[in-house]
């Protein structure tokens, strides 16, 4: 059961243009969403997050949008830079009725920014 989905396995964007990475989820009980960037042979690095009560969060070149009715979030990178080339994972935190929680990761989108 893939609760967090990234339907585009890869994306290529010209340097300076906008990169838009998409993520869909199925569970309306997610409390918090995060985006991570991962370079080969390294651990995921946190980029930006958004609470389920918000619809937008911005940090420098990175903006995350959340559309709860569509169960969809997106990460916008403007302007894109070659150093942004990496695999991007969206993740969601779900708390359970027993008070536990779990991070669930999407399958990742490989972004390539072309110089």
């Amino acid at each position: 059961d893939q609760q967090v989905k990234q339907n585009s396995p890869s994306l290529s964007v010209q340097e300076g243009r906008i990169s838009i990475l998409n993520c869909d989820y199925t569970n309306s009980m997610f409390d918090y969403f995060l985006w991570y960037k991962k370079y080969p042979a390294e651990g995921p690095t946190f980029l930006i997050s958004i609470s389920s009560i918000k619809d937008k969060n911005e940090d420098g070149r990175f903006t995350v949008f959340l559309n709860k009715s569509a169960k969809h979030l997106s990460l916008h990178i403007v302007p894109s830079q070659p150093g942004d080339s990496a695999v991007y994972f969206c993740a969601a935190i779900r708390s359970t009725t027993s008070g536990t929680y779990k991070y669930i990761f999407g399958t990742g989108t490989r972004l390539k920014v072309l110089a």
Partner: protein
Amino acid sequence: EPEVTQTPSHQVTQMGQEVILRCVPISNHLYFYWYRQILGQKVEFLVSFYNNEISEKSEIFDDQFSVERPDGSNFTLKIRSTKLEDSAMYFCASSERLTTEAFFGQGTRLTVV
């Protein structure tokens, strides 16, 4: 900047052997996690740990797996009898609070032969 450290960076083991993967989370963090990523596949949640006990575990985290925080600084993942399919990159992570971002270590590449 504080970071999560994992040792070793690469571990090769024979099938059926026990392995212990070690992690030192960020010192003021209270929540600890293990994830794994099989080559070419997604990052999969294994287990979360809080207040000296497992908070949540996935279906992957069966009786062959265990976690421990033996001394207040280390956080270990033990696989009792490794299988070929356990070969993966294992990531440790920690977070300060439940809904803050998790910081990941560089990973331990486990190769079971």
